């Protein structure tokens, strides 16, 4: 009897290990819903990658995603880890102040990150400014604008001290006066009003403020102030991933009265960008910033079919929430996300070619420190 149980236990272990290997090699998952990202898959073998150790690292990553019940295991671990930490977090955070938990911090009722020191990003910001200024210098018929979104990375929420990241960027830009602006976040109250509690993106209030300020920057008439539609306690953003026990928050959208327009992505024309209508009708099952406002896309073109100026928006996921109403004020609005442009389009982004091809009148760079401090300065192309 005892021997049989031993054999069964050993066989179960072996079967589980073999099942994990078979799954990773033969029938891999494509997406990890729990972590809101594509699943890492078994890498293609190359001798060079093997010698460098890249193949082995990629195989380890693939197994971590592909073994049976990996997501459940991660969730279980996070429940264990968070449930032990939450009482301490509440105790330490009772007087306010940052309380770290892995890579994020609890600050009052929000999940935030600590501010980035200027020294860490100054060189990257100056490189971004150099690129933008150089493009503007060789494109005399096109106006260039910068809209910098300040977030919790620009401000110490405890002391109110700012890192000066925008000032550094603005000082290094060679653009006409008034062509560089920012979404100002000067206090925790500003931040709490304009950003999600569990996500790094701006909420409906913040994105509307951004939209209105952008219209002023670009000197276009904004759409009438929209109604706001809110679904209570339906959303847990990316900062809550892995932090079990944090309650879901409200998710609101601004109901802009946008004119009809065609929307084109590299794969072809699509009916709409984002699933705001489904969200409002209550039919959207998985509420996320990307699913509601539109997923990140290397190139996106809105065409209102009306005469007017053409706009190029260079940014990242922050602009997903505002490009559609913004496009209402232009004949054609192109959006380029440098993080995926080259891989989706099969060629690097070249500003001069793009401006010529789409007859662009104005270029708007919009984003926060992740964009101006990482994406833009390191992007390939010219």
């Amino acid at each position, binding site marked *: *009897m*005892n*021997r049989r*149980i*031993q*054999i*069964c*236990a*050993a066989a*179960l*272990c*072996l079967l*589980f*290990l*073999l099942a*994990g*290997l078979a799954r*990773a090699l033969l029938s891999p998952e494509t997406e990890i819903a729990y972590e809101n990202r594509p699943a890492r898959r078994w890498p293609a073998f190359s001798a060079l990658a*093997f*010698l460098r*150790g890249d193949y*082995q690292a990629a*195989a*380890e990553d693939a*197994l*971590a995603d592909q*073994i049976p019940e*990996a997501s459940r*295991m*991660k969730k*279980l*671990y*996070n429940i*264990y*880890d968070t449930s*032990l*930490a939450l009482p*301490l*977090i509440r105790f*330490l*955070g009772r007087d306010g*102040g*940052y*309380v*770290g*938990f*892995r890579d994020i911090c*609890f600050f009052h009722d929000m999940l935030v990150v600590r501010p980035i020191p200027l020294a860490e990003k100054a060189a990257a910001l100056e490189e971004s400014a150099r690129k933008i200024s150089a493009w503007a210098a060789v494109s005399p018929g096109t106006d260039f604008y910068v809209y910098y979104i300040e977030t919790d990375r620009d401000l110490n929420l405890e002391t109110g001290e700012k890192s000066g990241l925008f000032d550094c960027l603005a000082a290094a830009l060679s653009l006409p006066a008034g062509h560089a602006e920012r979404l100002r976040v000067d206090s925790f109250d500003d931040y709490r009003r304009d950003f999600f509690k569990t996500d790094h993106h701006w909420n409906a209030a913040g994105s509307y403020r951004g939209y209105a300020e952008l219209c002023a920057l670009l000197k276009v008439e904004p759409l009438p102030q929209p109604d706001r539609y809110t679904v209570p306690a339906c959303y847990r953003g990316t900062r809550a991933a892995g932090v079990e026990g944090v309650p879901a928050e409200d998710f609101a959208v601004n109901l802009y009265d946008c004119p009809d327009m065609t929307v084109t992505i590299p794969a072809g024309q699509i009916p709409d960008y984002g699933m705001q209508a489904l969200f409002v009708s209550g039919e959207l099952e998985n509420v996320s910033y990307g699913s509601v406002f539109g997923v990140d896309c290397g190139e996106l073109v809105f065409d209102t079919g009306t005469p007017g100026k053409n706009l190029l928006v260079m940014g990242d996921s922050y602009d997903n929430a505002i490009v559609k109403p913004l496009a209402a004020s232009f004949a054609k609005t192109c959006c380029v996300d440098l993080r995926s442009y080259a891989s989706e389009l099969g060629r690097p982004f070249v500003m001069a070619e793009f401006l010529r091809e789409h007859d662009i009148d104005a270029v708007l760079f919009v984003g926060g420190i992740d964009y101006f401090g990482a994406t833009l300065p390191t992007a390939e192309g010219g």
Partner: protein
Amino acid sequence: MLFSSLSFLFLFLPPVLILYHIHPSPRWRNGVLLVSSLLFYAWGAPKALPLLVGTAALVWLCGLGTEKGRRFCFPLAVGFVLGSLMLFKYLGFFAGIFGARLGFSLLLPAGISFYSFQLLAYSLDLRRGTIRAERSFFRFLLYVAFFPQLLQGPILRYGKTAPMLGARALTWDGAFYGMRRFLTGLAKKLLIADQVAVLAASIYGSSRYVGTGALWLAALCYTLQIYFDFSGYSDMAIGLGQLFGFSLPENFNYPYTALSITEFWRRWHITLSLWFRDYVYIPLGGNRVSRARFVLNILTVWALTGLWHGASWNFVFWGLYYGVLLLAEKLVLGKRLERVPRLLRWLVTFTLVNVGWVMFRLTDAGQLAAVLRGMFVYAPTDWRALLALDASVVSRLLMVPLALWLSFPVQRVPEKAGPLLSLGYLALFGLCVLFLVSASFTPFIYFNF
């Protein structure tokens, strides 16, 4: 490849176990073990594989020559092994001592300290005539590269391993014991060592808020980390050996129960201590020499022991620290030590070992000096601010008392495992996989030695 990696558990181990047991022929089984051992090594250190195989080939050839009385063979083998160890591990360190800077950097081949010592032991034993030279290169390569012990020991002696390189008896009880031992080691590594490691790293990584209390906590965490990490690895190695019919030597025997430093080193990394005893200390004359020579012998052995652990001054000081403590025990305290109450002896020994691990952990001399000062000159710790840096340490803090408890022989798993025990190990396996999938912080401290 680390034993506590998903690649090892899912990609490597199941096919090797199946292929090994599919055919009873010793030749087939040795073939499977040799090929898998080389693949195992190549997976983690592909560029270092030619050095491993080449060194083994040279030592094997020289071994045959030594047995035939060719005088140049022994110095050639020893010179080559020590030379490659010196080149890959110590060149930069010694160049630095003489104020030179290398214009290049060499990759430290994984496990070089371990397999070099096995090869040296083989050459020295042949020279002494205590073993016969291995005729088959493939069996010799298997002795050197056998994957359970290749990267972090235990350091094998050829004389004891040779009989197992032929036919091996494999029983179900032995295999099940191997499985249990492997899982015990895996759990030690993943559930304890990696957890307390986060605490130690977090305290040593933050200079602000840290006072005497936090520094002692960090020292304790690292003390527990290194024991559960390294003894966990040894358990896994011994367990894997059992799964393939090998009986590998024990490397640890509850070292933190030691009542003196001498006893600690009889219980810690036993195969390394025995290696230095047999191949350095005794050839230097051991204790049958003058008092001055004895002191010199001890300090030489312990400076070398320190240097074996890493090419850095802190390791040398760590080795000499133990040399001095052992001399103090042997020459000053002597039998008087036994009259001290056991609890006090344990406390003093454990504290001294903790301090030793701090010297081992901190390679930066400035930080080491500051930490040692901080441990002995009181400064308050801002616990609130320290914990607020990362509250996820709380789950790790819970592991500290558990790890301390498990450092003592408080639980004995019965040899005759009941059904509940099997289910317990099954649950432990699930828990290990859960932690492995979920956590990413999993360095093996002894990997680079």
